[in-house]
Structures are given as C-alpha cells and as structure tokens.
C-alpha cells in the first residue's frame, strides 16, 4: 500500500451561506487502494469538517452513499479511486434537491416507493411454518430482491429528470418484486398503481438505470416484464 497525491473536486452547497452549488478542489494524499468513501472521510476528518455526505455500512448494503463520480452514479464505499485516476470530481445524485453538499433529499424517492406498497400482502390463510417457494418461483424475483434502495437508478433515469411525478425505476422494480412473488396476493392493486402515465409507461427502456445500479440488477428487463404483465391483465 503506497500513498498517492490526488485532486478531488467536490460540488459544495452549504444552505446557510451559499446561493448555489459551487466546486471546491481538495489536494490530498491517500492510500492508493482507497475508496471514494475513504477519500471523503479523509477530507472530512483532516481537511474540512463541514463536508456533508451520507454513509453507514461501508459494505454496499445500506445504500446511503450513492453519489456521482466523474458523471457516473456509484456507491462511494465500494468504488476504488483507481477507477478514476488521480483527478476526479464528486457530485450529489442528479434529479434530487440538494440539502447540503453531497446529501440530497430522498423523501420523494421513498414517497414513491411507499405508493407501490413495498411489503408482502397475504390474503390466503398463513401456512403452519414458512411459505414454500419452488426454485423457479424464487428465480423469478431473486435478483430484484437485491435492491438496496440507493436511488442511483432513479437519479440516472432521464425520464425522471423532467418529471418529478414519475415513479422511477427503483419503485417500479419493487413493484415487480412483489407482483411476481408467488407468496403475495396484492398483484392486481400494484399493477393498477403502475399502470399510469407516470408509472411503468414513462419508462422508455433507456437502460441508464441498469448501468447505474451498483447491484447490477437487470432493472430494464424486469420493468419490461412488468409492462407485459400490466398489458396481459388489463386488455
């Protein structure tokens, strides 16, 4: 492990003193195997304690640390700096209101998630023990359950940028995850919610969400299956 000198440009915004966001450059020395989060910690702990950013698990699990590095949405805690060289820029996720520096307001994101009822709803009598699923049934939803709600996909979606009402890929993926869950009994309700101009039909299969997803979930494919399901059920 060796020390390297890097130049990091960070989009800063302090609501009390700044009228609009502006860039600030930090020239620092870090270990060459650092992650973006290590860099932010280094700046926060040793150079500028006012720098705000979210992080919690440091293990790509909690989804708090999604941000944009050199224009790409990444999880700061899992992304090594060598992907970007010795000079790079860090900004908050697009499409959300900035609260402070790299912290964005995710309330609208979670509001949309709530609209699709992101929990298992069971009408049938509960089994004595656990629900039994075949490997095929699990396979159908397996990958979509890996979502950590980091919002990188919704922030990368061009259909979301001009239209704050669009449910966005993360909420739609969650709808898919429950609609296709063999244990769930609320598929029709969820299909009705996503069958809207600002629901699944706002998705134009641009694939940005898939590119941005740190969990490599094939979001666009699942949203296409969801569209077919809506059409099957409604026509």
């Amino acid at each position, binding site marked *: 492990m060796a020390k390297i000198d890097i130049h990091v440009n960070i989009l800063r915004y302090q609501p009390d003193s700044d009228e609009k966001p502006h860039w600030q450059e930090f020239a620092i020395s870090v270990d060459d195997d650092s992650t973006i989060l290590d860099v932010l910690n280094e700046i926060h702990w040793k150079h500028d304690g006012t720098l705000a950013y979210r992080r919690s698990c440091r293990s790509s699990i909690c989804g708090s640390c999604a941000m944009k590095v050199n224009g790409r949405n990444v999880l700061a805690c899992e992304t090594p700096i060598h992907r970007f060289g010795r000079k790079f820029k860090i900004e908050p996720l697009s499409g959300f209101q900035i609260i402070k520096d790299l912290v964005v307001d995710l309330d609208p994101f979670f509001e949309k998630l709530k609209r699709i009822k992101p929990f298992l709803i069971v009408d049938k009598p509960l089994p004595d023990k656990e629900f039994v699923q075949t490997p095929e049934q699990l396979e159908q939803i397996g990958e979509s359950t890996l979502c950590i709600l980091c919002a990188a996909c919704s922030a990368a979606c061009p259909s979301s940028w001009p*239209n704050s009402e669009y449910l966005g890929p993360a909420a739609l993926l969650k709808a898919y995850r429950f609609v296709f869950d063999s244990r769930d009994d609320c598929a029709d309700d969820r299909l009705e919610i996503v069958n809207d101009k600002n629901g699944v039909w*706002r998705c134009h299969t641009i694939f940005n969400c898939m590119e941005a997803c740190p969990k490599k979930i094939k979001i666009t494919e699942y949203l296409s299956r969801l569209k077919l399901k*809506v*059409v099957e059920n409604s026509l």
Partner: protein
Amino acid sequence: MEKNFKQTSRSGAVAWLLQRISAVILFILLLFHFITYHFLTRTHAVEYRQVLERAQSWWFPLLQFAFLITALYHGLNGVWSVLEDYLSSRGWRLAWFSLLLTVGLALLFVGTLTIIKLYTLKVA
C-alpha cells in the same frame, strides 16, 4: 382481489402495445419492400417501365398504404411519447398534439395521393 384497470387507454398501455405491434409490422413490410424492390428485380439496372409496372400491380397500393399508415403511426406515436415527458401544462400538450395530428393527416393525404397517382399513371 377485484380487477380494476379503469384507465388502460389513457395510461399509456395501449400506446405502448400498439408501438410494439406497429414496429413488428414495419419490420415485416420493410423486409417485403427490400425483397420485392431490390432482390427480385430481374434486370441489373432498375428501369422506369419496370417500376411503373410494379407500382400498378394489385398488391402495390395495399402494401404502400399499409406502410404509410404504420410508419406514420409509429413515428408520430414515438414523438408524442417523448414530448409527453417534457410537457406538463395542458395547453402545451394540446398544442403539440394538434400539431402532430395535423402533420400526420397532411402526410397521410400527400402519401395517399402519391400512391393513387402511381397506380393510375398511364404506362407510356
């Protein structure tokens, strides 16, 4: 749970489905177009008389008209679905929709005239 898909036609489901169906039809028509126009021509160079003869066979106006309708629907529906992302006010939506409809009808008129003209042209 009771099914309740009231807003299917306005939700975008029908437009989405028709966009896919028209894409498949366009693909088939294009294949047919390429095969009949470019590969089944018996001479090396395409001649005026040959083109006119083909244009006056019974299937030509049918094929061209199907082409015209599908291409117009597919193209304009595509443009409309892009515009819908950016137009939030009712006024602008109405204005753009009317413009697209007018363009569509004008092109349909011109296209139909051309097909009829070709079909009825006297071979010299």
